[in-house]
């Protein structure tokens, strides 16, 4: 459902079926809608069999990396010698992304059910749901839903805890999230060891995104073949995905489509295209961390993991940020760089210093103080910030810079040449 709008006929409504329906938030309402059937079914199955169904469905991580979920679960030790943990990443902080928030707001039990199924599949006795600190409403709703589910004893022996973040973007990085749960500073860890070997509290851990887990009950009840059949383009990308569309469109919101759906149709048909009198200029298709697409690239882009890569970006978390011809791309990119400079955890040198330096150069350009060499300098710094750090935050800062300069060089040069009125004070 294109919440807060009505469902568009082109949507494939699975996860978002009950968005806007407050009754679905309650345990009673959720059970009435078929909730917790999948969990009951899963608990009767061998954990390996549950994992196999998910593997077969082709479900891939919806947090951004797109790693096959069933495969990830199968990395957990076959022989259980130590406690296993499940972490649920509900620290949705990627600028432009607001799908997990809606899942938690409207269908908290979908997440809880998926969480319990995953915990069963990886034989975890404890699951932590790490919820972004700013998500006050989802937090309250999740708390209430968890209390209801616990009172009804739907999780059996599995213990589910909610853990509230304190406002750091980096805590959405899986190992930083684990450090944060452990009470430490939310710094990403060096890998290896990977979480399946040594994760939360040093124990084998699996971490999944909210949207990924919310899809799991549907896969169990309707079958892997059904989910696999939800595919419009590349067979490696199956199922539905929520896209959070924001920016210069007439009807922003969350839209659920089958993977492989054309981005053009999403933006023009469902979201109503740019405001009247405006034309599309650019689009960031997967949350702020991915390269920017031009109008041509956007209109040719198919929304699945492979399709967006073929267009020169990444599917990421599905946060679609749309710019029309009124947008100042230099300013928009500066805002992104400033975000990453603010959120860098300060561990890696390139990220700590590079994000801040990049921001200063961008601000200088916008203040009309840019130097001719600044674009080369930005590209060179971006090169030094890409692929060299513990996590990908510094890469994420570099991606819009590199793609922005490549695709909207004229706008940068207009500032450098003094042809555009400075919009910032140096």
């Amino acid at each position: 459902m294109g919440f807060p709008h009505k469902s568009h006929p082109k949507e494939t409504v699975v996860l978002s079926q009950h968005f806007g329906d407050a009754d679905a938030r309650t345990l009673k309402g959720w059970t009435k809608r078929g909730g917790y059937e999948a969990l009951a079914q899963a608990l009767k199955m061998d954990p390996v069999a549950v994992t196999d169904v998910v593997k077969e469905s082709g479900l891939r991580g919806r947090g951004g990396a797109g790693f096959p979920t069933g495969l990830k679960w199968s990395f957990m030790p076959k022989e259980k010698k130590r406690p296993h943990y499940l972490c649920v990443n509900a620290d949705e902080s990627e600028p432009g992304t607001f799908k997990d928030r809606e899942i938690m707001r409207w269908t908290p039990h979908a997440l809880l059910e998926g969480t319990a199924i995953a915990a069963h599949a990886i034989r975890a006795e404890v699951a932590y749901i790490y919820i972004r600190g700013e998500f006050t409403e989802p937090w309250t709703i999740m708390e209430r839903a968890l209390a209801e589910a616990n009172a009804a004893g739907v999780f059996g022996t599995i213990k589910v805890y909610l853990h509230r973040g304190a406002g750091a973007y980096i805590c959405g990085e899986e190992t930083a999230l684990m450090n944060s749960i452990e009470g430490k500073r939310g710094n990403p860890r060096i890998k290896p060891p990977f979480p399946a070997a040594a994760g939360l509290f040093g124990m084998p851990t699996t971490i999944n995104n909210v949207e990924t887990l919310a899809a799991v009950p549907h896969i169990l009840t309707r079958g892997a073949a059904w989910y696999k059949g939800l595919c419009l383009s590349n067979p490696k990308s199956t199922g539905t995905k929520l896209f959070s569309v924001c920016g210069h469109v007439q009807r922003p919101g969350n839209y659920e489509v089958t993977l492989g759906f054309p981005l053009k149709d999403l933006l023009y048909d469902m979201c109503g295209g740019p405001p009247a009198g405006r034309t599309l200029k650019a689009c960031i298709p997967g949350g702020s961390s991915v390269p920017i697409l031009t109008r041509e690239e956007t209109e040719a882009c198919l929304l699945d993991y492979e399709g967006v890569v073929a267009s020169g970006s990444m599917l990421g978390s599905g946060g679609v940020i749309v710019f029309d011809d009124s947008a100042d791309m230099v300013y928009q990119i500066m805002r992104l760089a400033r975000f990453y400079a603010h959120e860098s955890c300060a561990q890696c040198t390139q990220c700590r210093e590079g994000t801040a330096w990049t921001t200063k150069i961008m601000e200088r350009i916008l203040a009309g103080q840019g130097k001719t060499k600044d674009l080369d300098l930005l590209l060179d710094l971006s090169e030094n910030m890409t692929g060299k750090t513990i996590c990908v935050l510094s890469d994420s800062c570099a991606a819009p810079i590199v793609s922005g300069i490549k695709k909207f060089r004229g706008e940068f040069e207009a500032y450098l040449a003094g042809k555009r009125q400075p919009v910032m004070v140096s």
Partner: protein
Amino acid sequence: MADGLINLTIDGAPVSVPPGTLVIEAAKQAGVLVPHYCYHPGLPVAGVCRMCLVEIEKAPKLQIACATTVTEGMVVKTQAPAAKDARQGVLEFLLINHPLDCPICDQAGECELQDFVFQEGQARTRYAEFAKRFNPVEDFGPDVLYVPNRCILCTRCVRFMEDVAQEPVLNVSERGDRAFIGIHPEARLDHPWAGNVVDLCPVGSLLSKDFLHKARAWELDKTASICTGCSQGCNITLDTRDEVVVRVRPRPNLEVNRYFICDHGRMHYKWMNRGDRIEAPLVRAGAELKATDWDEALDRVTAILRGTEGRTAVALVSPGASSEALALAKRVFTGFTWTGAFQVVMGEDAPLAGVPDLALRAERAPNAKGAENLGYTRDYAPALAAAKTAAVVLVLDDPDCAVDTNGALIYLGTVLGENAACRRADVILPIANVAEEEGTFTNRDGRTQRYYQAKPAPGMAQPAAWVLGQLAAAMGPAEAQR
């Protein structure tokens, strides 16, 4: 190639190392120092400075040598263009906010930022026209200052306090380029081993107040020595400038002190520079002591040893004397009924929690074990009582010895206090202190370790082992003495 070892190639050189070895350590075997800041063999791996990026064949991207373990057939290229570019990038990032105040920085000359920038960095900055980050100097503890402007946030100090000292009072505060090393608002960096953070700091960000502006690194002579602060036997380096000891630093010894020394040991050097030393041999002339040369002084001692009626001798020695001196102080009395004793000053134990068997020991003497091995006893009071009636008493390097004897008294020492009991000695022989001689100590675990001469002894002072050796030689072989 030996069994059970992993074979790999580093910059073309084949090396074989045990499984589990980190690439950065394997590189050392190949004679390659991979530039690094956050990595330290005595601390948990952090992998944050990203300086040790190297190219490894078949790896999709550059890897950090400090967190990558070796695999069979691995081919490491530290000088690959991509690796050099990446390290140059890190150096540039590290320098943009660095004050470049090397001329007034204590670390200059032994600074890893200087070293690696000189080796691999670029000559010019591209950070022109932006203000550098500024934070004021902070007083962290009794001997530690924090200069945040020079900090490269390698977190060695944080990890030392957290994992090695296990008193986590330091952290990284703030985020992004606002980050700095923070200290708990109610804590001081006063752990008994806190001074190690100064050594661990690869730049001039954590400074010793004691050493502040005392010397430039390149003016220092460095001498291997053994700490005399307690019976642990930590390996140290004595740094001297113009023949004055100005600093004590740990010298790595994985079996004894790893990479660390305690603050007590670190500060236990000022007495080595005392100016009020005995500089010439003194012999008794009635009520007076007369300065003389070594020949006369040694002759006088020989005459005393040969001429005594009784054949009882007591040696009251310092457990800080070298084993060589202690052995000779015994041999000199061959043929005597001999008692040797020492007393040990006791203090508080101060263990370093993260390192087994490493502590500032309650027994504040470096060679008590050596003295014991040579037959000296800890029963000091009876020996002191026996001295009263002994024919000859020898006091070795114990200026505060409360000796009282009716026999002859020979004192070998570095200083002679105004009211020292040894003022009534028949002969006083000036000796070198630990910084002025070579010798060995045996630590509490029975490990005998050598220390070397760091500066000349004042005046005519000689190592105690030399003095006692002269006397032993003068007394002739054992069988001839009676």
